C-alpha cells in the first residue's frame, strides 16, 4: 500500500464516525484531490480483494471503515458489540416524510400520517436524525424539520439523492378515477 493509503487507513480507524473528504485532505496538505481519491480506491480495493474482515464504505459525504456484514452475527453472539435498535414504523414514517418533504412542519407530518407526531419528533431530535432547520412563514412561525448527516449514516446513504425519487415509487400520485 502507498504511504497515503496507510495514513488514510490509520485516520479512518481512529475515527468512529464517517470522515469527510475535507478532513481526510487535511491529513496531508500536499495531497491533491485526485491522489486522495486514488488512495481511497486503493484502500477499498485492498479490503475487498485481500481477504479482510472490514470494508471501506462511502457514507454521509465521508468515508468509514466498517466490519463486514457476514461477521455481525458472530460478533453479536460473543457480545463484543450489539446492533442498535431498529426504528419503529411510526418513526420511519416520520423520517420518510421529513426526508422527502424537508423542510416540513410538524403539522404537515401529522396531517399526512393522521396521528400526532410530537413524541416521535422529540426522540428523532434526541437521536440526532433530524434537526430544526428553520421556521415557516405560516401563522405562529412553526418549526421546520430536516434530516441530518446522522440520518444519512443511519441509512447508509451517501446523499439524499440516493433515495428513490417520488415518481419512481410504485404508487404514483394520480388523480382518482371517476367512478
Amino acid at each position, binding site marked *: 500500500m502507498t504511504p497515503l493509503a496507510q495514513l488514510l487507513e490509520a485516520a479512518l480507524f481512529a475515527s468512529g*464516525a464517517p470522515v469527510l473528504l475535507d478532513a481526510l485532505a487535511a491529513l496531508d496538505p500536499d495531497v491533491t484531490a485526485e491522489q486522495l481519491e486514488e488512495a481511497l480506491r486503493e484502500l477499498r480495493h485492498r479490503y475487498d480483494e485481500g481477504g479482510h474482515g472490514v*470494508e471501506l464504505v462511502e457514507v454521509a459525504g465521508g468515508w468509514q471503515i466498517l466490519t463486514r456484514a457476514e461477521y455481525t452475527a458472530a460478533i453479536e453472539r460473543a457480545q463484543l458489540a450489539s446492533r442498535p435498535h431498529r426504528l419503529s414504523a411510526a418513526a*420511519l414514517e416520520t423520517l420518510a416524510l421529513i426526508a*422527502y418533504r424537508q423542510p416540513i412542519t410538524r403539522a404537515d407530518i401529522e396531517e399526512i400520517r*393522521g396521528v400526532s407526531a410530537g413524541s416521535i419528533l422529540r426522540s428523532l431530535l434526541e437521536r440526532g436524525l433530524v434537526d430544526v432547520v428553520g421556521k415557516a412563514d405560516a401563522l405562529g412561525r412553526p418549526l421546520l424539520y430536516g434530516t441530518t448527516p446522522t440520518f444519512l449514516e443511519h441509512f*447508509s446513504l451517501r446523499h439524499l439523492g440516493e*433515495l428513490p425519487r417520488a415518481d419512481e415509487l410504485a*404508487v404514483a400520485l394520480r388523480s382518482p378515477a371517476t367512478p
Partner: protein
Amino acid sequence: MIVLADPGDVRTSRGDNPPWRAPADTTDSLNGASFVVELTHFSGPLDLLLTLLHEEQIDIYDIPIARIAEQFLARIQSLRLDDAAEYLEMAARLLRIKAQMLLPRHDGDESWDDPRAELVRRLLEYQQVREVVDVLDARAELRRSRFAHPPPSVPVRPLAPARLSVALVDLLAAVDRVLRMASGPSVHAVVPRALDVAGAVEAARALLAQRDRLRWKDLVPTGAEPWHVLSVLLALLELARLGECLLRQPIPFGPVEINAAERPSWMAATMIGDAPAPTDERPTVPTPDMETPTVLMPHFDPPHDTAGAAA
C-alpha cells in the same frame, strides 16, 4: 402486545413481513407453524385502513365505503383502539362519507363530487410514505449489520496515590496515641447560668445617656465572668438592633466602638435623668416586624385609588 396466530388476521397482501409487524425472534421460533403478526403495531388509522383494503383486495379508487367502515369499526374495537382519538376520528370520517354516498344522485351528473376523493388522496399519499419506509428500513439494515470502530475514549490517567511507607513501630505508636486519647472519656457537666441581658441593657443605656462614645472596657470590667461578657454582648446587639447605639469596628480585631445613635435634640433633653425613655418610642418586642408586612399586604389599599375616585 397482542400476538395472534389466527391465519384469518394475517396480512397476506405484503409478501415481505416488515420486522415491526412480525418480530424476527417470534417468526424464527415459530417458522412454518403459523403466521405471527403483532396487530397492535398499526402506526395510525391510515395504516389500519390501508391494511384492510389490502386484505380485502379492494381497489383503492373504488372503495365500498359501507363495508370498509363496518370492518374498520369492528377492527378498532377488537384491538381496543376505539379509545384512541385518531382512530375514532377516522371512523367518524368513514361514516360521514358513507352517509354522503347514500344521497341520491342522477346518472351522468357531471357536478357530482365523489366524497371519497379526499380519503383516496390521503391513502395514496400515505401509501407512498409506507413505500419509502420499506426503502429506508432496508438501507438502515445495511448499516445496522456493520460495526464501526468505536472512537477511542481519551485515556484519563488518574494520579497514582503515593505509596504508604509506614513501619510497624509507627503504626503501633499511632494506635497507642489513639487509645490513650480515647481512654478517659471527659464528661462535661452543663450548668445553667442565667444571663442578665436586661440588666446589661439598662447599664449600657445609662452609660450612653451620659456619654456619646463608649468602649467595651467601660461595660465589661477586666476579669468578668463569662455570663457577664455574654450578657453585655447580647445587650449591645439588642441596642444596635433597636437603633439606640451604633457598633463599629474600624480595624479587623481592633477595639469595638460603641456610639450613641443620633437622636433628636428634644429626646436628649427628656432623657436626662430618665434612662428608660427610648423604650416609649420603640417598644422592645422580642421578634418585632417579622410577619406583619406579609399579613398586611392583602389589605393594603393604594392611596391613589381614592385620588382616582376623586378625579
